């Protein structure tokens, strides 16, 4: 029973707790570029739904050299899969970086790939909510202090 309780708690709570930390960390690291992080995090779930996980990961990979925000998002995904108690991705602990994760995804079986897609979507659901809640809109800010940070 106690185990059962624990697993129920850890599914959504685990995702939520970790997503919150990810967003807090992104805000600290990115400073005035944090708006980018927010808009990318909002965009990615729809990219996964319309283009599939593999292509979306490839897209993040292609962007992360030039964009710190995408680099952080890639790290967020990998770190979550490493911490995920369900072990959707069996050998997650052995993967060193996001490039490694993309390579692993290209070798997955259909059923594993689908399960991973669902897990990443579930994680982004939290990430997106917290990013929206913790990072204020550029528009609001511009109205506030007249600074344009573009």
């Amino acid at each position, binding site marked *: 029973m106690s185990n059962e309780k624990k697993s129920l708690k850890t599914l959504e709570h685990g995702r939520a707790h970790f997503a919150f930390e990810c967003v807090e960390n992104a805000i600290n690291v990115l400073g005035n570029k944090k708006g980018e992080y927010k808009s990318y995090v909002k965009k990615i779930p*729809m990219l996964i*739904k319309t283009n599939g996980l593999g292509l979306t990961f490839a897209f993040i990979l292609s962007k992360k050299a030039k964009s710190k925000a995408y680099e952080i998002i890639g790290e967020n995904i990998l770190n979550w899969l490493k911490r995920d108690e369900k072990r959707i991705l069996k050998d997650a602990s052995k993967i060193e970086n996001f490039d490694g994760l993309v390579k692993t995804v290209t070798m997955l079986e259909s*059923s594993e790939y689908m399960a991973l897609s669902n897990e990443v979507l579930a994680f982004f*659901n939290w990430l997106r909510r917290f990013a929206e809640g913790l990072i204020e809109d550029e*528009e609001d800010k511009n109205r506030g202090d007249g600074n344009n940070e573009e």
Partner: protein
Amino acid sequence: MYKIAKPVFLKVVTPLHAGSGQDLGIVDLPIQRERHTNFPKIESSSIKGCIRESFEDLEKENKLEKYGVDDIISLVFGPESGDVHASSIAFTDARILLFPVKSVKGVYAYITSPKVLERFKKDLEISKTLDGIKKHFFDKKRKLKKLTVSNREKLCISEKVILEEYAFEVEFSEDTKGFAEWLSALLGIEEIKDKLVILPDDVFGDFVNLSTEVITRIKINPETGTVEGSALFTEEYLPSETVMYFLCMASPIFLKKDKKEKILKELMKNEKFSEEKFVMNFFEENLPKIIQIGGNATIGKGISELKVWKTEGDKQ
């Protein structure tokens, strides 16, 4: 209470959005889904409302005068307000039967799963339509197995069917082919014959979650001609070609005795069948072939074809 039931098939012609309101998922305006399976559904209240509306249109065009009774719609569908009497016709939620998914060969395939077919069978049993020649597609000897297709040439590339970005190793099955042909004739949808794939339940569940149509909508500011700041939202739709079904059930007409006798005399004339049969016939005779269900009617969404299952012994 309800004495007779008939399955009605619903084929989605233009993307259909039977919305569940707000949601905290990745889509702002998601479609209705069953709680325990997460398969798409359409609430019976949506269906009943749309059908009632189409009957009211008929009444406006004076096409229901032949029944010789005032307000026959209230008799059958229940009164618009108050609780004078109940409706003598009922509908169940529409359930999914076939879901179209992009296929590398054949443009798209119709997917279904053993669990979906099992439920379909149960619902047919409820409505007593499984009798006679149809039964053998569901008997114990002929199993509609997962990972089988109705036509290998039209769907497969070397033993595999490739749906979206997933490849499945499938085999051809005579039973699946027979079932697809039967369903195709029943619904009048030619393509089912060549496009049916039975997938494992889990995979089917993933497809009906991940492969629905999602449309992003914006609002243009008429003064500037550009997008308004945060007026961007996403809507989920059941794709065209989806096939669903629901049961239509009929009971005797509910009315206080003194009123009822007079009305029945007028309605039934000297017909020899029961009241519930009259209700069912009234429904079938006047049901439009094309109906609009769900949201966004003004942008052409939700147009669907309805087809009542004809059973033997029906008044043709």
